[in-house]
């Protein structure tokens, strides 16, 4: 099969970008979408042109490094699928595809289809952890965790941090990403001691990074390759309210109210 690509080319963060059209011929429907890009890039190298830069690593849908907006949809047309797991059989022969990076203020373009998602790392660093220093843990079976909670925590923990949720959101909000981590750790007894501080700090960091607010569009859930549910955002909001109400009591003198 063959497809026409209208791909975003941008030299670096400082240089304006533009769309360039490429014809991809001799494409097998068994190829993954990224393998199709590999073939196009080999062709460009043969012509002495710079290949289209895109991020990818594991190519099995788990590392979260890949991410291309295909015809306006992050990771393309197939639900619950990362760009690397998308196959050409999902497209019609002769299709014309527009390829763009995951656009958001908080995700500056690095080159072509590659963006800088380090804002996500900083959200995690602000509080997305349990402060249990290595070495002193008690026996793993000391605290039983109801299977239901542990399963819900795992559902949330399945987030791969790709940023499709941000790219899909009209406000470029990082709520689904942040909520997934807040939920996972709030659902486990080990996460309880820090739950108030965690949600407050992570939400604050989200705002500092320039992500927008959540206005319940639900686009994030629709494009999430791991099916992270909007229910996590509801849980984050509950956690945040709970933290705001208890904050003054837990930390006398630190003032009430929360950001955002």
């Amino acid at each position, binding site marked *: 099969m063959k497809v026409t690509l209208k791909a975003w080319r941008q030299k670096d963060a400082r240089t304006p970008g533009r769309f360039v059209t490429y014809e991809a011929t001799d494409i097998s429907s068994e190829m993954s979408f990224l*393998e199709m890009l590999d073939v196009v890039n080999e062709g460009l190298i043969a012509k002495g042109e710079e*290949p289209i830069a895109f991020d990818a690593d594991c190519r099995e849908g788990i*590392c979260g490094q890949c991410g291309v907006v295909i015809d306006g949809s992050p990771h393309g047309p197939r639900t619950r699928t990362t760009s690397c797991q998308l196959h050409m059989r999902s497209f019609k022969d002769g299709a014309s595809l527009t390829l763009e990076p995951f656009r958001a203020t908080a995700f500056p373009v690095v080159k072509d289809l590659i963006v800088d998602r380090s804002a996500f790392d900083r959200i995690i660093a602000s509080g997305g952890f349990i402060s249990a220093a290595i070495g002193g843990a008690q026996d*793993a079976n000391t605290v039983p965790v109801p299977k239901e909670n542990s399963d819900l925590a795992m559902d949330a923990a399945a987030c791969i941090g790709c940023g499709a949720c941000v790219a899909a959101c009209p406000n470029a909000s990082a709520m689904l990403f942040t909520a997934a981590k807040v939920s996972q750790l709030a659902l486990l007894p080990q996460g309880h001691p820090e739950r108030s501080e965690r949600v407050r700090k992570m939400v604050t960091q989200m705002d500092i990074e320039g992500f927008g607010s959540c206005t319940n569009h639900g686009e994030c859930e629709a494009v999430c390759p791991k099916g992270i549910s909007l229910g996590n955002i509801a849980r984050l909001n509950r956690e945040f309210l709970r933290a705001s109400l208890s904050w003054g009591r837990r930390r006398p003198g630190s003032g009430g109210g929360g950001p955002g």
Partner: protein
Amino acid sequence: MDLRSQVPEGALEKKWDRHRFEMKLVNPANKRKFTVIVVGSGLAGAGAAASMGELGYNVKSFCYQDSPRRAHSIAAQGGINAAKNYRNDGDSVYRLFYDTVKGGDFRSREANVYRLAQVSGNIIDQCVAIGVPFAREYGGLLDNRSFGGAQVSRTFYARGQTGQQLLLGAYQALERQVATGKVEMFTRHEMQELIVVDGHARGIVTRDLVTGEVQSHLADAVCLATGGYGNVFYLATYAKGCNATAIWRAYKKGAVFGNPCFTQIHPTCIPVTGDYQSKLTLMSESLRNDGRIWVPKKPGDARPPGDIPEAERDYYLERMYPSFGNLAPRDIASRAAKRVCDEGRGVGPGGRGVYLDFADAIARLGRKTIEEKYGNLFEMYNRITDEDPYTVPMRIYPATHYTMGGLWVDYNLMSNLPGLHVLGEANFSDHGANRLGASALMQGLADGYFIIPYTIGNYLASNKHAPVSADDPAVKAAEKAVADRTAKLLSIQGTQSPTHFHRELGKVMWEYCGMARTEAGLKKALSIIPELRATFWKDIRVVGSGESLNQSLELAGRVADFLELGELMCLDALERRESCGGHFREEFQTPDGEALRDDKDFCHVAAWEYAGEGKKPIRNIEPLNFENVHLSVRSYK
């Protein structure tokens, strides 16, 4: 070269305790005076950086990906072993130790393996404490499943995403230290040279993959946790970016390379479908708990699997290895698959595949249970093949998955180059000639969380060095080597892309240094690879510049190193004139086709020493002594 394993004296069970007491300590106030570099952010690297940051050292952590959370530990599916004996089924530290030594076909160091088994339980405790959502039973306690090479259920798991959950736990611990300022994180940075001053590893030179800037980082010690080198085969289950550059630079600076030919071919991967294919995808070994592996009894039987009656199927693992059945260890299961395909009984396009069938399990347990256990794996299979494994058996075939070989380290995880420590898959140590399933995650976290935090202190307390100047000739020379190499790759402007050379090398390695090796084949590979390398340096085409993000340049540098490493692997495979674990030399097999070890001549680690450009490397030996598990023929029948 005198390779000292530094294994402490005393009874096996007491060695680690005794060593921990005897090692020197760095007092808490002094820890902040030391800087440690950690390259790689997988389980071993992130674990080491987080734990050393918690202790108070200044840590500089590096990864080539855009975030430390991408490291390929994330792709491990099935689970992590630990000798908890929560199942009451007879597990113990000693049994995990025994299984691992036997599983490795008696080519690992007993004391290291015992320590690994000893700390395995602490790993699970630690992971639960930091919020890893392991699978649980209705009573709220942790669940287990079985993996190959064991007759107990000691594998802890988080659905089919155990590696992801363990890595994210370590990543979160790492980010916590980044926030405190104890760890400085460098993403999209690739280590391209090791800095050695007065015989000690004192730093690294990196290339910033976004700006192309070449930079030196100096420290009191260096830890490489950069993973395995299986991408030398081009098609493998590794992430595309996994590479051997860090360990190869260290090798060329004097660190010896242990057992490079010990590679693991995993039996259950999705078969190759075309030339364009960029990687292979693993289907977790845990599937062998419930899936049954079979091929038609008759060669060339092209009927759809559903039309082949029970009596005309050969469940060959159950037939050949009745006590372990479908859970035979990986090397054995892989070779058995190759053998039935060589007999013309393989299935699918090209006849390179066997069935992994869940029909019996679905009939016995119901579709819902199977979905709960393996849902994401079935989905992944469906994505790639467009087939539904709930109704049609999976087709699988072996693929490169792990490398047991790696830089040689002593009991302290330090290489022969003082100050250079090597953790996780990048070192050679614990798995001998074959790694058991669910043991890689265990080793990565053991090294990072529970071993290096102790042994690094001992090294730093016993080696007080003056600071290295940024103008030191060794630093300048290392920086120049990196810049020269980049300039050379860009200057050739030949006709072939880096991928072309990588694919060609992969074909040679798979053909001659893959699942079955022969003297003639290895000699042939040893003549082809230097030619291919020479062509590479004449005909490589790297477009773009060195001063910006340039993925062709990155790949070209990695392939250049694979072209040297591949040769060393073939040389090691040629000189190890025996079969053991994943290293199968066709000349050395039992009458029924099993690996035939030669304990008289090869019960040792081959540690290869770089001898200079164009010179044959030197094969050093560390003898292996088995005082607790007696050398015996490994039988899973």
